[in-house]
């Protein structure tokens, strides 16, 4: 077990190195001029591009620049983000909680709701329940997220003036900023902090701003989970031990929920893991539309404006998340499925 984890950590190192080299390599395909141009914000400034290239040594060979970058990172300096116009690490820690918060609400709903739907339609295979719920899920799945998000925005915010976009309404935001003494940012998550500080209005307000993003995200993503769960259920229900259980005198409910579902859950765990690992890019469109300035939004901005340090930072982070999730998943697996032993 321990050896296993250790090996995984080694792997992590490998992954991070690989990822960084890859992304760096891709970004290096730009001409130095182009990369210098990222610092330019108005036509007048274009004059200074050669100077900028000099200043940052953008015309030096790949490995030199790469190692310069590594050295900086080792010093804990991930670079300067133009999009956020502040150091990348600092920016990351301001944006990350926003994305995290959204996913903290979305993920459980996605997973549980998906499992629930999957179980239902698995049990009632080929009945109208099955078909309708599947079609529903797939339709959700086939919606382009940004489109759906905009529609949601129009319906709720446009018609009913509900759930305004953003993260927190100005009044409260200003309040928080005005008296940092009264409102501690323990977790950086507004909902949590609101509770911890006994300011439930803030929690509620934050929730109100979360409703639309979470809803959109859930409806789009749930299909993934539901599908796996469904086929899992169908498969398990066809197995012999189910009959054994029936022969024991187990009632349908017990058979479905205790015997079949337990086994059907295994593949779902994997999917859930993927969801977790991908949640960040999953939230790009949502964050852009609902004007939540989280990592997803930052990513979109940086990718289009070619904010290299940001891309690097986020890719590395995602690599980290990915490996970490897989590790936890494997452990979870071993816990749920007695047949698996980690070696």
């Amino acid at each position, binding site marked *: 077990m321990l050896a296993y984890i250790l090996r995984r950590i080694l792997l992590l190192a490998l992954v991070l190195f690989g990822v960084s080299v890859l992304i760096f390599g891709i970004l290096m395909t730009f001409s130095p001029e182009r990369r210098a141009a990222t610092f330019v914000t108005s036509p007048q400034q274009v004059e200074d591009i050669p100077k900028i290239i000099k200043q940052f040594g953008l015309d030096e060979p790949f490995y030199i620049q790469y190692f310069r970058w590594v050295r900086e990172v080792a010093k804990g300096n991930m670079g300067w983000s133009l999009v956020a116009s502040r150091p990348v690490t600092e920016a990351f820690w301001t944006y990350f909680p926003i994305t995290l918060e959204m996913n903290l609400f979305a993920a459980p709903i996605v997973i549980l709701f998906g499992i629930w739907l999957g179980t239902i339609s698995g049990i009632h295979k080929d009945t109208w329940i099955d*078909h309708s719920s599947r079609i529903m899920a797939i339709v959700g799945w*086939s919606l*382009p*997220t940004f489109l759906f998000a905009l529609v949601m925005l129009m319906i709720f915010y446009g018609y009913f003036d509900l759930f305004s976009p953003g993260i927190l309404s100005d009044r409260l935001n200003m309040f928080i900023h005005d008296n940092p003494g009264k409102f501690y940012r323990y977790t950086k998550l507004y909902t949590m902090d609101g509770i911890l500080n006994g300011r439930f209005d803030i929690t509620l307000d934050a929730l109100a701003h979360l409703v639309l993003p979470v809803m959109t995200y859930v409806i789009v993503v749930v299909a993934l989970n539901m599908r796996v769960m469904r*086929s899992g259920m*169908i498969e398990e229900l066809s197995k012999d031990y189910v009959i054994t259980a029936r022969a024991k005198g187990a009632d349908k409910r017990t058979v479905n929920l205790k015997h079949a579902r337990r086994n059907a859950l295994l593949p779902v765990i994997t999917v859930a893991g993927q969801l977790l690992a991908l949640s960040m890019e999953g939230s790009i469109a949502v964050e852009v539309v609902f004007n939540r300035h989280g990592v997803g939004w930052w990513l979109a901005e940086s990718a289009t404006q070619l904010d290299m340090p940001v891309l690097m930072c986020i890719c590395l982070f995602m690599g980290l998340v990915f490996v970490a999730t897989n590790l936890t998943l494997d452990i979870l697996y071993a816990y749920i499925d007695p047949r698996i032993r980690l070696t």
Partner: protein
Amino acid sequence: MSEHPRWRELKFTLHRIFRNPSAIIGFSLLFIFVAVALLAPWIAPPKYLHNPYLMPHKGFSPVPKAPSKENIFGTTDGQYDIFYGVIWGTRTAFKIGFFVVGFAALIGIALGAISGYYGGILDEVLMRIMDIIWALPTLVLAMAIVVAFGRGLDKVMIALAMIEWRWYVRVIRAEILTLRDQDFVQAAKIMGVPDYQIILRHILPNAIYPALILASMEMGSMVITAAFMSFVGLGAPPGFADWGQMVALARNYIVGPPDNPLKFWFTIVIPGGCIILFVLAWNLIGDALRDAFDPRLRRR
């Protein structure tokens, strides 16, 4: 019982597939799309012969015009004829799907099969590489690649293909690892059948189903991803007949003027609907395939 067993199997599978209502819906939808794609030049004769994917437009006004006689689906931002765009967009959609999936599947299956079959150091190395590739967030990588190699749908397609192959490696390899040690493969080995034949004749045909299912699912989702790229501004240029691009172009008209918020419904509903139906079709087919192929769900 004289016919070849695999052939019988196939017939049986098809039989199963078409018992499944969702499959019927899926295939009929797909059929319509294929027909439209093939007949595009006759349904909507192109204006610029050197590039039929350029949507014709009268004037430049950004304000969409409601459906009328000359353009039956109305015009979108920039006065592009939605009807034309939808028709030729079908081709684009298929292009994206087939290119990305085909390319990715080819690489993925080849690599997966080889590393799964031979295992050993080769497998080890490939798996480590896979670990790295998997750790890369799809969209980020896609964006980076596109920004690096320039905008445009072709770039998006290349970028996606360069990422998606990892799925097929994973799927195929998993299948092959289970098949590799089974008796019929061992038998073939003992009989001295060359490896490539074993892989092609004995293993792949049994391992291919998950890849097929995956492929059919991806055919749809790739279109969505491409649409997303257009949304971020990295996809097809405005005026290019591509559903995703049209949706992205129309996104500022989802919310109409307050007195009549649905004024511009057609700009979003028509191309959006196309995307949804297209993806829906492939997904339904994918589901049907899964139900049909999955050996554990069969014969019942």
